[in-house]
């Protein structure tokens, strides 16, 4: 009997030991190429940390946002590491939903993070998320079509030049359109582009007292220019085009210019996916001479929710995935062209990277040109270039996006869309108590 009891005790100790020592991290992420690559390299992390296992939850961006918000707001504790955007970081940090990242390790080199990106993920001087990859927006254009038309793209084009070139390069019979821009409604879709464009025209979402500004001449000029330009030189059905639709159009050779995320540069120059891979040039997003370019700033970041009970292991993972060594690891496995861009200064000083990424310098210049703390010509009370980092923005942005998408589709006029946007935004801001 004693032996049996001893054996049972021994077995239960043996069974219990690995369970006690092993920490399982649940990581929520989006289905973007760089994240999928990170998932594939997880074994490199677990090899170094045999006491940690990793479980991935990959979801579509909007589903992930809803799922993660529900969990973090209820302190559900289902996730240990979250993939969140620059929009969420300041809002969630202020609400105390995120754990500040103070123990990323001595060799992490926080100073190497690009200053604009670091600002975007810090609140009150504390880092609340670590950037995994960053992006801005820029002009991608067809060098062959520009040459044929006798045009030369300046490095810092103005809107006048872009509009004129788009008109000249449009050949609707041949199925070539001067410019492809986002038109699909959504705060992260058409409003990302239009807010950045509006910044370059001197417009802003709110004045210093949180009054919505869609009734100003700057917004009218922005929206009128956009709608007219797309009518004259854009592809048909542009009001339902988002990033992926425009990427497909550009890769098929249908667009002479495309203004969108810098991350697209590696897609359009990849001969496996693009018919025009060797005919693409890059330039900064257009301006009107007011001091702001029409480019945004975004980063996907890794953060720890306050509900997690495994913060130590989670921080270890974040430090690994956003480190310089991770970049080297990706380079050794998949080549320098595939490393996550837009987060570290050292990457843009690396000759091997610069050799394979012709768009690298412009990506860096675009990121540098965007300032989330001073996004507009006139002063604003909010942080964020293509969004205002307040919880109400998702709803407002999408409502306004629907109005502007309707104006592009022709189902409403520019004036009516602006008036409706103003009314909807005023109503929401009053309801939220920003204005009376």
């Amino acid at each position: 009997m004693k032996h049996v009891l001893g054996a049972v005790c021994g077995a239960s100790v043996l069974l219990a030991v690995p369970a006690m020592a092993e920490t399982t991290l649940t990581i929520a992420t989006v289905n973007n190429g760089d994240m999928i690559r990170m998932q594939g390299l997880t074994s490199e992390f677990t090899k170094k940390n045999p006491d940690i296992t990793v479980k991935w939850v990959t979801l579509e961006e909007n589903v992930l946002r809803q799922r993660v918000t529900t969990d973090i707001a209820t302190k559900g504790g289902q996730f240990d590491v979250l993939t969140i955007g620059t929009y969420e970081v300041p809002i969630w940090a202020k609400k105390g939903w995120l754990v500040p990242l103070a123990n990323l390790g001595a060799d992490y080199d926080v100073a190497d993070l690009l200053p604009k990106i670091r600002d975007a993920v810090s609140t009150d001087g504390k880092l609340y998320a670590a950037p995994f990859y960053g992006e801005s927006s820029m002009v991608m254009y067809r060098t062959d079509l520009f040459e044929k038309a006798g045009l030369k793209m300046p490095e810092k084009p103005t809107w006048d030049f872009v509009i004129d070139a788009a008109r000249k390069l449009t050949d609707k019979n041949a199925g070539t359109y001067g410019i492809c821009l986002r038109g699909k409604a959504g705060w992260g879709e058409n409003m990302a582009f239009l807010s950045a464009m509006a910044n370059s025209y001197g417009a802003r979402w709110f004045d210093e007292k949180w009054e919505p500004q869609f009734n100003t001449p700057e917004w009218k000029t922005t929206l009128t220019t956009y709608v007219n330009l797309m009518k004259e030189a854009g592809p048909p059905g542009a009001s339902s085009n988002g990033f992926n639709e425009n990427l497909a159009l550009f890769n098929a050779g249908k667009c002479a210019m495309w203004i969108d995320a810098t991350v697209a540069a590696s897609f359009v120059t990849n001969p496996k996916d693009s018919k025009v891979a060797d005919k693409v040039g890059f330039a900064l997003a257009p301006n009107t001479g007011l001091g702001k370019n029409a480019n945004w700033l975004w980063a996907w970041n890794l953060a720890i929710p306050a509900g997690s009970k495994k913060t130590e292991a989670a921080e270890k993972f974040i430090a690994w995935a956003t480190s310089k060594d991770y970049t080297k690891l990706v380079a050794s496995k998949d080549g320098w062209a595939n490393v996550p861009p837009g987060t570290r200064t050292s990457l843009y000083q690396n000759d091997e990277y610069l050799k394979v990424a012709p768009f690298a310098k412009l990506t860096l210049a675009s990121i540098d040109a965007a300032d989330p703390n001073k996004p507009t010509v006139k002063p604003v009370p909010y942080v964020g270039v293509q969004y205002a980092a307040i919880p109400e923005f998702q709803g407002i942005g999408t409502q306004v996006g629907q109005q502007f998408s309707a104006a592009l589709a022709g189902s409403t006029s520019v004036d009516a869309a602006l008036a409706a946007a103003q009314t909807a935004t005023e109503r929401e801001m009053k309801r939220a108590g920003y204005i009376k």
Partner: protein
Amino acid sequence: MARMATRQRVVISTIGAWLFGFLIFFPILWMVLASFKTELEAFAIPPSFLFFHWTLENYVTVQERSDYFHHAMNSVIIAGGSTLIALLIAIPAAWSMAFSPTKRTKDILLWMLSTKMMPPVGVLVPIYLIYKTVGLLDSRIGLVFILCLGNLPIVIWMLFTYFKEIPRDILEAARMDGATIGRELVYVLTPMAIPGLASTLLLNLILAWNEAFWTLNLSTSNAAPLTTFIASYSSPEGLFWAKLSAASTLAIAPILVLGWFSQKQLVRGLTFGAVK
């Protein structure tokens, strides 16, 4: 002459029915075709219908990246479990309401249906908090329970209308012949109720299999069924249609096969009883 006209009508209506059927089936066919294309071909405009470079690359990628069988097993357990429990509760409930109705039966039926009128997102936070407190988040039993509750009103309604169709005279005749309640249930009622039961079971199974709101919101990895498997292949930046189609084809395959084999029962049940 009249016979020719009738034949012509039959031919026309047959062609019409086939065309309509094809139209309904087309999105599924298109999805299956897209799963054999490369990402570039899946996005190409104009799209190619059959003449493209056929590839299994997407299926290989999906297999490499995700554990299909883990998700499929979860789907089988969650959909099967919730359906069985729903039937166990619904059969006696519908039985008593059909054969011994009271003054309040109608009100109870309407009240049960009214629970379906509220969009699920309205109760997401309370349910999430309850599940968190009782430790049911990311558990199969939690999903079985919520899907069972969600589908219960429909199951009861369907069974109630099937049972109501069964003539009471037959039951009385059985009783007069000396049948006990047990015998009456097994030998008289069950054979008559089988088409209705089968179609309710199948419909509920399909509803539970495809349910994407609760399964996405209350599961993370351990209990994640095929709906989360599909959701992981949609991407805001980058081409994903072909891989998403491959994942979706794999996800619907089991239920499609089941539906195919049991379509006779399903159609019979649906046209015979309740939802006519």
